[in-house]
């Protein structure tokens, strides 16, 4: 398995969900303690669904691809879906030889999204 699969290379070069929303209903950001990278995720909710989601931040190719794939998986889906996802769901899609030292890069976008939705749910 490649260190950086075509999936990662493609998402890193041509992210589909990178950007900012003008009036997000949910938003979150966190830092990867390994590298100080920051990932922000914003979402718009409608009828219990995550109608639209975008990510931003300066981060490595793995985090970028992970964020982009994650938002592809959850956009348009019931908001509760994000809570059911695990890093393993992302690993499967990334199709790369992710070393233990880079697992945080995979997991960070998911933690950020789940945190943002939880914050919204308890508001």
């Amino acid at each position, binding site marked *: 398995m490649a260190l*950086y699969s075509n999936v990662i290379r493609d998402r890193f070069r041509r992210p589909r969900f990178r950007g900012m929303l003008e009036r997000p209903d949910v938003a979150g950001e966190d830092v990867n303690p*390994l*590298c100080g990278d920051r990932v922000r995720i914003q979402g718009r909710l409608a009828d219990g669904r995550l109608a639209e989601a975008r990510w931003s931040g300066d*981060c490595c190719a793995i985090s970028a691809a992970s964020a982009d794939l994650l938002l592809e998986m959850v956009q348009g889906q019931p908001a509760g879906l994000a809570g059911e996802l695990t890093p393993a769901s992302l690993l499967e899609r990334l199709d790369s030889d992710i070393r233990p030292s880079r697992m945080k890069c995979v997991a960070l976008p998911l933690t950020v999204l789940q945190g943002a939705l939880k914050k919204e749910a308890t508001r």
Partner: protein
Amino acid sequence: MSMGEKCRRDFPILSRIVNGHPLVYLDSAASSQKPVAVIEAVQRYYETNHANVHRSIHTLGEEATERYEGARDAVRAFIGARSREEIIFTRGTTDGINLVAQAVGRTLAPGDEIIVTEMEHHSNLIPWQMACRDHGTVLRAIPVVDEGYLDLDVFARLLSPRTKVVAVAHVSNVLGTINPVAQIAEQAHRVGALVLVDGAQSVPHLPVDVAALGVDFFAFSGHKMLGPTGIGVLYGRREVLERLEPAWGGGEMIKEVWIDHAQWNDLPWRFEPGTPPIAGAVGLHAAVEYLGKLGMSEVSAHEQALTAAAMEALAPIPGVTLYGPRNPQMKGAVLAFNVEGFHPHDGAALLDQHGIAVRAGHHCAQPLMKRLGIVGTLRASFSVHTTAAEIARLAEAVAALRSEL
């Protein structure tokens, strides 16, 4: 034959194949590899001499004490300290700085000031932040100018009778800048401040004479200078150590103990509670002998030539930015750089595929990264065993990076 080619044979790990390529180890600034002399010294010690030091009344205990105290004498000579009482064995640079921050911290009063620099490794920043939290002291920082030097005009203005401690790296672990610590110490002493120097990146690479530098404390690590992990050295000027209370208590650091009080041991043991890293000291002794035989002026010339070669090889590669002084004569054995569009961790992971080990990230210097406006850098660092051919391999792999992601 160059020093690098000659020394390579002494480092067993350098014969490793990593990801199908001969290992190019360019991460000595994080932790250096070990020559056979060090590995064997530690093994021989455990096989023949090991026991606890200082109070074991038997042959092995005496031998272990002799080896441990012998290491102290070797380190004293290596860094030009005047007396063995000034050499305190620690767990590493971080441990040594924390020791000073604790012990000196207790002498500070609210409103006193501590001066650090914007280029400090977290190990020479966080202990001082904690001292400020605990004692109401104020932290000030000498800024870094664009080319990676300290702004000494600002330093002169920051100094005042309130300044009690100036804590500065001898060589930046990112920029490689060799700071003028003798001059800084002289200025700091004029206002009565104590000066601590983080020597983690200088002792392994440059001739160091702590007495000539005129500093009060000088901390460094064994594992960055070809020695084992878990051993470090804190040099403390005798007159200063004598008036400080010990940082930590325990066995070995006392002369006599009653249930409610105790009398401290003499220097340097007063600052060495508990069983010390004896094998680490033995290994460090071997490392100091190894470096001593090479000669630190020769080591420094060899590594400076490599730094210059790396700068020359990397600078013309499209998208490459180098950080720190442009004059290699002003740099230690590290070179930080970035490749446009590449996160440092992706760069390091791809270089590793070529068997090239470099460091990537913020290098425990986040305030410096913020100052430079970047999340991190790649960093190649050099040692006695590094060769010009390895620098060429690095440059080749860096040039190819953009086609790989």
